[in-house]
Every structure is written in structure tokens, then in C-alpha cells.
């Protein structure tokens, strides 16, 4: 029985490792390719919007038919439950593949497909590795206001998104794990929000506030509404390099299951975000961030750890 388990683990682990090596190799080769094949002097994205600010996905000034692709790798930790009782420790490595298309100068449509590797460590010392899709998201960003058409300084936008239940349910001993550590909610979750971008070279400010309202998911479970505020200040110290600092805060409502409220759910957490963006070519951007949990008022036995991300964005 034990031998069988360990053999199964070896096989699946090898497959998981091989698959992640493949994805990592793809990311690396993508970054490398942008160096090896430097961009020609076609209309550069920053030239097209008349502002040299290096912008990550979702904060850009759109122009018609601007297409961006992004691949980001991130890692984060989560701890849920009482130690030596029902504790679950989660370490997640995640790839986000995002494509964004500016249909008009005022409308950007984007699609995000996450893939995550989740390592669970339980109180009974069992360990589990799962590679799975997360919840894919469709998002629209509508520019409500721009102070001028070319080289805008102020952009006010509305965000509407829809998270789709593409992530599978993760069970343990036939019981579903808490929603807080699932890769998805099993529900269609609409998001609404507002964004504001200020471009004052060499400084820029990006603020996004969103509210996600979940609909009933796995077995009627209902994740609480989740409000998120992301504010990032950027100082572009060099034409091709910018430093970033900001806050990423989240206020979650309480999750409800058929038996009532989930004890270790909901609450508030604020991360301090530090990072940089660097332009590798006129079309390729590299960005890296570290998120440090600064204020943790999550309900019950719930902690989130340091998170980090490394991403690559390319303008087609």
C-alpha cells in the first residue's frame, strides 16, 4: 500500500516536474528570444501613446489594435487552520498567461489563463502536489475619461470582469478542501471596478479598485464578496528602467457553506509591494515584484506569506 503510494508519487512528480520544466523553459526561451531578435524600429508602443512610461498589463494607455501578451510566474504561501489540528499549509507556484487587445482607443479586452502548481502540507504530515488550471478570467477595461487623446496624463477607466469556473475541485479523503485553498471557486464571479492612471514622466501612479461578487459554487458554497485596492507608484529612473512601490490590499467577506459561516475565512490583508519594470526592447518588458504582508487582519486561523512574481510582457 505504502510502496504503491510512493511509486505513484514518483511517477506523478516526474510528470509535474517535467511539465513545469517545459513551461519554465518556454518562459526563458521567450525572454531570450526577445533579446536575440531585437525589435526593429516599427512603431513602438510607448511612441504610439506619446508617453515613455513603462506599463505592465492593465495599466497601459490603449490605442486601437494594440495587442499585448504576458506570461508571469508567481509564488505565494498560505496557512489555514489550527496547528497540530486541521492546519493546511499551501505553497503555490503559478503561471498566468494573459492576452489583451485594445479593440478601440477606449476599450481593452483581456483574457487570463492561470495554471498553478499547489503543494499542500497537512497536519497529519501528508503532502500533496497538484498541477491544475485556475479560474480563467475575461476582463474589459473601458476608458471613461482621458484628458487628451495623445499622450494622456489622466486616464479614468471602468473595469468589468468575469471569472469562469475552469479550475477543478480539490478533495481530500472525499471531502472538499476549504475554498480559501482551492484554485477556483467553482462559480461564475463577476468583477466591477474603477482604475485611475496618472502619467507624469518620470513618475506615474496606477490605482485599481475592484469588487468581486461570487455566485454559488461547489456544493452551494458561497465565497464572500472581495474588494481589492491596488495602488502603485512608479519612478522611471531611466528610460528603460523603473522602480515601483505600492500597496495591494484585500477585504474579503466571509465564506458560507451549507453548515454556516466558515471560521477561517474573510478579513483584511494589506501587502507592501516593491519591484521594478525594465524594458528589454522597445516592445518587451520584464517586471518583478515582491509582496510583503504588512497588515494581517484575516479572520480565524489564516495567514498569508510573502509573495513574489516575475513577468514578461510583449507588445505585438
Amino acid at each position, binding site marked *: 500500500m*505504502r510502496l504503491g*503510494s*510512493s511509486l*505513484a*508519487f*514518483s*511517477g*506523478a*512528480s516526474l*510528470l*509535474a516536474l517535467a*511539465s513545469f520544466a*517545459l*513551461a519554465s*523553459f*518556454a*518562459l526563458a*526561451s*521567450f525572454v531570450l*528570444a*526577445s533579446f536575440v*531578435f531585437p*525589435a*526593429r524600429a516599427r512603431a513602438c508602443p510607448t511612441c504610439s501613446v506619446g508617453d515613455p512610461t513603462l506599463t505592465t498589463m492593465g495599466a497601459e494607455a490603449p490605442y486601437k489594435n494594440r495587442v499585448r*501578451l504576458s*506570461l508571469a510566474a508567481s509564488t505565494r504561501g498560505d496557512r489555514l487552520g489550527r496547528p*497540530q*489540528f*486541521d*492546519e493546511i499549509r499551501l505553497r503555490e507556484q503559478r*503561471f498566468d*498567461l494573459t492576452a489583451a487587445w485594445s479593440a478601440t482607443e477606449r476599450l481593452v479586452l483581456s483574457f487570463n*489563463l492561470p*495554471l498553478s502548481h499547489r503543494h499542500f502540507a*497537512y*497536519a*497529519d*504530515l*501528508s*503532502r*500533496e*502536489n*497538484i*498541477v*491544475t*488550471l485556475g479560474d480563467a478570467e475575461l476582463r474589459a477595461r473601458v476608458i471613461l475619461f482621458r484628458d487628451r487623446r495623445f499622450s494622456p496624463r489622466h486616464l479614468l477607466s471602468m473595469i468589468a470582469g468575469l471569472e469562469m469556473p475552469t479550475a*477543478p475541485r480539490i478533495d481530500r*479523503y472525499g471531502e472538499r478542501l476549504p475554498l480559501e485553498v482551492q484554485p477556483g471557486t467553482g462559480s461564475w464571479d463577476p468583477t466591477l471596478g474603477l482604475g485611475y492612471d496618472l502619467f507624469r514622466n518620470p513618475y506615474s501612479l496606477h490605482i485599481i479598485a475592484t469588487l468581486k461578487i461570487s455566485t454559488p459554487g461547489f456544493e452551494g458554497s458561497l465565497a464572500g464578496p472581495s474588494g481589492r485596492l491596488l495602488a502603485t507608484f512608479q519612478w522611471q529612473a531611466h528610460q528603460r528602467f523603473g522602480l515601483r512601490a505600492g500597496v495591494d490590499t484585500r477585504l474579503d467577506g466571509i465564506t458560507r457553506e451549507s453548515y454556516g459561516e466558515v471560521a477561517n475565512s474573510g478579513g483584511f490583508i494589506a501587502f507592501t509591494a516593491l519591484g521594478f519594470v525594465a524594458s528589454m526592447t522597445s516592445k518587451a518588458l520584464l517586471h518583478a515584484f515582491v509582496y510583503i504582508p504588512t497588515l494581517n487582519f484575516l479572520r480565524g486561523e489564516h495567514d498569508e506569506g510573502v509573495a513574489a512574481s516575475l513577468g514578461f510582457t*510583449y507588445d*505585438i
Partner: protein
Amino acid sequence: MIFRLSLLVPFAFVFAALLILSSAGCHSKIEGVRLELLSSITLNEESLSDSEDRAVELDRFELTVEMVELIGCGPGLAARILSPLSILGPSRARAYHGGPTTPTTYAHHTTVDLTLAGEAPFGHSADGESDSGFSPPANDYCAAFVRLGALNLIGSADGEGFDAALEHLRLDLSLELGELGTLDELEREAELLLEIDVNLLVKELDFGVLMENPSSAELFHEAIRRATSISWRKKPAEG
């Protein structure tokens, strides 16, 4: 054009990797700690006698265990002194009593045959070995909470027949372990034995009184308390 295509190839590569991974449903697991539960019956049929020295013969004697909940040891003295609030708390064991779905609880009903001396695994044979144990949290355990359910006793005392069928004994036992029960990285498998000394149990009963009140569960309580204990041992190596 070549440049554009060369950059799209890695993207396609990533996308393909995503699709392969999601469809493969990659999953691996390392088992955690495991605790097997066994009943351990001590019985010498030849010397069975009740409190009034009546010779007792047992045709059927079954006891149902409804739940076994492990109780973790409380923090040590040093930890209690360092934590000012916990000094007011319990010093020995910390009971959770979270119910049958908590991770420290084994909640399969198990009928223990008290007429068979020796050890027998918990659970039902129809379910295979899957429910003869469970995976509680790794911890140091000092006690167990045992909930008993039905009791069936058919036999005779000095040749006089006796039949008692109690649907609910309504008896909860808090049984302390003589020595620490540990489940950790080094000791990943162990066994918890529910020990019942049937001779002692019968010796504590007055069959004359029982015959007059065959449906009185309370008459069994003290006898079962005295005759029942638990012990912890490392799981013997297989094969």
C-alpha cells in the same frame, strides 16, 4: 514576419504546456501519519464469575464503539509559564470535542466481540482495511475520549439465562494513556489499543440485579469504566 513568428513559438509552447498539464491532471501524494485502532480483549472463560461469585457463561457479548477522539497533550510547564493566559488553562490534556468530523476523531461504528480473546482491528471487514484506522494530526497525545453505543449480552449466571439488549449505553469514557502517544516524522505509524478485561468487567456486575433490570444501562457503566483502558504502541514492522 520571421521575428514575429519566432516570438510566438514560445508562447504557443507555453500554451501547449498549459493544456497538457491541465488535461493530465498531475497529482502526487505522500501519505501522512496513520493510527490503527484495535480492540484487545482479555478473557478467561473458565474463571468468569460475577460480583456474587456466580459462575457466568457468555454466549454473546458485544459492545459498539461509536467514536474515538484523540486528546492532544497540553503545553508543557515552560510553555505555560511563557504564555500568561494559558497558565489558567488545563494542565494535562486539551479536549477539543469537535464532533465526529474533526481530524482527531475516528467515527466509524465498530462492534467489539467481547467473547473473543485477543486483538482485532476496528472497522467492518466488509469495508476492507480502509477504515481500521485514520490519519490524525501529528502530535503528542495523552488521552482518548471513547463513546460507547449498543450493548448485547446473552448468557447465564449459575445456569439461569440472561438477555440484555441495550440500544444506547450512553457512556463516554475519558481514558488516559500510560505513556505519551506520539505521531511525528520519525514515528509515522502507531496503534491504539482499546483494552477490555472481560473477567474484570463481569466481576464488577451483579447478575442478580441485572436480571431484574435488564434494560438499565447505568448498571453497566461503572463495570465498563473499571475494565477498560487504552494503550499506545509502535506499529510492528510488516513481513
